[in-house]
């Protein structure tokens, strides 16, 4: 077990290093934005005095790397500064939104991941049959359509014609869980349709890839029924690529949902980011980017660890 923990800690350390590099990139990318931030924030009516005052207030007169370390030091303790537009603390502005985004992502993941893996197993089992083809064509269709289009189609059929679900997902804190699930149903369904194909096809491919292995033939020659060959003999050896694709898709559910949030007016972090970029509210932009980066790195780390844990050679060393 010692080797394994060391491996996990090594990966964690690497992940932290990556976040640090990304933080540098984010900070200086915002620095590189053309034009003076103070001018942009104050707009056309700004006088020279107000701009100078603003610059001083923001600390723009000091060197960039000093400000970077101040920002990084704050970020480590959860303090991302103050929003330039609302004057609110950035952490307060983000936290509610981020919780909403996490809620939607988990809602979609809990439904999409089991469905995709099950579909993947079934399409591998009934490969090259009508079922396989239909499942492939359907999921490919949903992944090839733009999310906003899918969203509007779902609104048209399930909100406007059938009026089963609300077209706008406005959430508030005093709603019960059932109410929340009902409100967020359409954005969830859109996301599920978008991510299913990728995970399902990887599951199918990873399993089929193993079907030529000698141990699969051995299982067949032991009289093992086909479903058991897939589930018991192929799937346990196919986890590594499946886990990686699942992790990438989970990351996408958190960081790539801007369009879906806009369509359903869902109060998530994606919308906040878009607003902040439009208004040059750079502390918010930086914080959002850092959170997205951390999400990606964390999920990929989890996938690495998962892949290691499912490898019997690493789990049970000689």
């Amino acid at each position, binding site marked *: 077990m010692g080797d394994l923990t060391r491996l996990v800690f090594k990966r964690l350390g690497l992940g932290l290093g990556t976040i640090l590099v990304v933080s540098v990139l984010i900070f200086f990318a915002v620095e590189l934005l053309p034009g003076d931030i103070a001018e942009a924030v104050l707009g056309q009516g700004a006088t020279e005095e107000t701009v100078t005052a603003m610059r001083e207030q923001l600390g723009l007169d000091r060197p960039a790397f000093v400000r970077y370390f101040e920002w990084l030091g704050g970020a480590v303790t959860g303090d991302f500064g103050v929003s330039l537009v609302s004057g609110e603390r950035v952490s307060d502005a983000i936290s509610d939104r981020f919780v909403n985004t996490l809620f939607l992502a988990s809602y979609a993941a809990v439904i999409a991941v089991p469905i995709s893996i099950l579909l993947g197993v079934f399409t591998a089992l009934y490969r090259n049959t009508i079922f396989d083809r239909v499942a492939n064509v359907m999921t490919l269709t949903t992944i090839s359509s733009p999310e906003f289009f899918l969203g509007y189609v779902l609104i048209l059929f399930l909100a406007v014609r059938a009026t089963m679900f609300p077209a706008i997902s406005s959430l508030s804190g005093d709603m019960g869980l059932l109410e929340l699930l009902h409100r967020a149903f359409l954005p969830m369904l859109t996301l599920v349709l978008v991510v299913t194909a990728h995970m399902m096809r990887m599951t199918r491919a990873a399993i089929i890839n193993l*079907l*030529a*292995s*000698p*141990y699969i*033939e*051995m*299982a*067949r*020659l*032991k*009289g*093992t*029924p086909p479903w058991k060959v897939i589930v*018991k*003999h192929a799937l*346990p*050896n196919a986890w590594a690529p499946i886990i990686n694709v699942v992790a990438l898709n989970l990351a996408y559910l958190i960081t790539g949902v801007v369009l879906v949030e806009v369509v359903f007016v869902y109060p998530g972090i994606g919308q906040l980011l878009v607003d902040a970029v439009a208004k040059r509210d750079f502390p918010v932009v930086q914080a959002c980017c850092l959170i997205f980066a951390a999400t990606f790195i964390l999920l990929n780390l989890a996938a690495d660890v998962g892949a290691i844990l499912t490898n*019997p*050679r690493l789990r*049970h060393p*000689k």
Partner: protein
Amino acid sequence: MHDKFKDADVLLEIKDLKIEGYSDETWVPIIKGVDLTLHRGEVMGLIGESGAGKSTIGAAAMGYARDGTRISDGSIEFDGMELTTASEAERRALRGSRIAYVAQSAAASFNPSHKIIDQHTEAPVHYRIKKRLEAQEDAMELYERLRLPNPGEIGFRYPHQVSGGQLQRAMTAMAMSCRPDLIIFDEPTTALDVTTQIEVLAAIRDIVDQFDTAAIYITHDLAVVAQMADTIKVLLKGEEVEQAPTQVMLDSPQEDYTKSLWAVRSFNSPQRHRPTDGSQPLISVQNVDAAYTGGVKVLDDVSFDIYPGMTVAVVGESGSGKSTTARCITGLLPPMSGQIMCKGEPLPPRYKDRTRDQLRQAQMIYQMADTALNPKVRISDIIGRPAQFYGGLHGSALKQRVDELLDLIELDPAKFYSRYPPELSGGQKQRIGIARALAAEPEFIICDEVTSALDQLVAEGILKLLDRLQDELGLAYMFITHDLATVRSIADEVVVMQHGKVVEQGPKDEMFTPPHHPYTDLLLSSVPEMDPEWLSTVLEERGVDNIGEAADP
């Protein structure tokens, strides 16, 4: 038919079996009408070269057609049940319970994700023959009978935690789990070292005897089949050549093809001796220690010399450090200590630090010509690149050189110049590998198990070619092999390695005459001979508990 089985019931009767394989968009015949009759308790050996259809017939005996093949005609009757017309479910119900299978590579045929014993109990539990715990107890009993170490514990390990020879015995135990009437052994010892092979052979023969199981034993090794089979059937390109009881087949084969198989070990290159004029060795390995990153020492104080124009065979089991020594010589693995001398000059340890002329000296030919040649590169480029790199040839001079090299390896330049590796047969690919090594105009070539993936007749052709090239071009070979028959036919000197050390070395005639080092003795006495009594004699001499890994001195 063997007299012993005159009165026994027929267990398996295959009549006029035809099997087709799908390739290039059409169905081509693989098995062209083979008959086979097997009685209860009889062991039939199927022998032939690769492509003879041995394994395909073995699978067909289970009513199983591999992906991309189909049984197109004929009948397979197992104990009164016609398998070609039975439903898939009916056929599946036989597999594992009444007909079991033992595959060539146990390491690849055990599922890496499950414990050995769980794979063992899968079939008996599935068929409700035994409860899980009963099946586990039975497994341990079988492990004990097959003389696996720690029979009570070994099954609870994962396949990668167990050695190859032990896995192969565990797989035989697994085949026995439902006490089948018939077991198909598909080259069960081909991937093993001779010293390990002997214990697996003994275990298989023992257990087949004890339970009076019928078996089809598939192999390309005649000496092995002579130990195992009551009857031998020889196959060639999907057709039967002849069949006879083992002793009759060994003593008086009828067909020319069979005779040619029997005669294959006849090639012998006259032994050369070291120059006596005190000249320097071409390559001298001096006190080399080596290890892979972070690993334990795999080479420990290895020293030997290779003189110009001579063949030095390096023999030993897998893991004994043969190929690692080659990696040190070529500079792919810098040694921890010691050095490699070339004509009295020390070679830089890393290939990156060597001059072009030093690099030219150490060329390699690999075991798997399939993977050693890039499938997307034309033959002319594969051979042409080293000719260009070392010889600085261009344009028509380069083409002429490639033609010359193709002539040298007995392939027609007009035909092969612009073809790709996948279009070639195994033997032809190995010839291209040889031409690539020759293109650098080296004085020394490392041949790493160059014949072990080839059929005997093809391998013989390669050995003859290497021998001819040696005479014509004055090449020195370092010949890595675990096959002592090959050593006997082409080596001048022999170096025996074990656990990363050289245990014995000397001229071939001395090495093959007693007294030997105990390990050399073990290696030599483990090589199967054509005498059907060989295995019994060896087991008697050594005692049943003193074979294979246990016999390691």
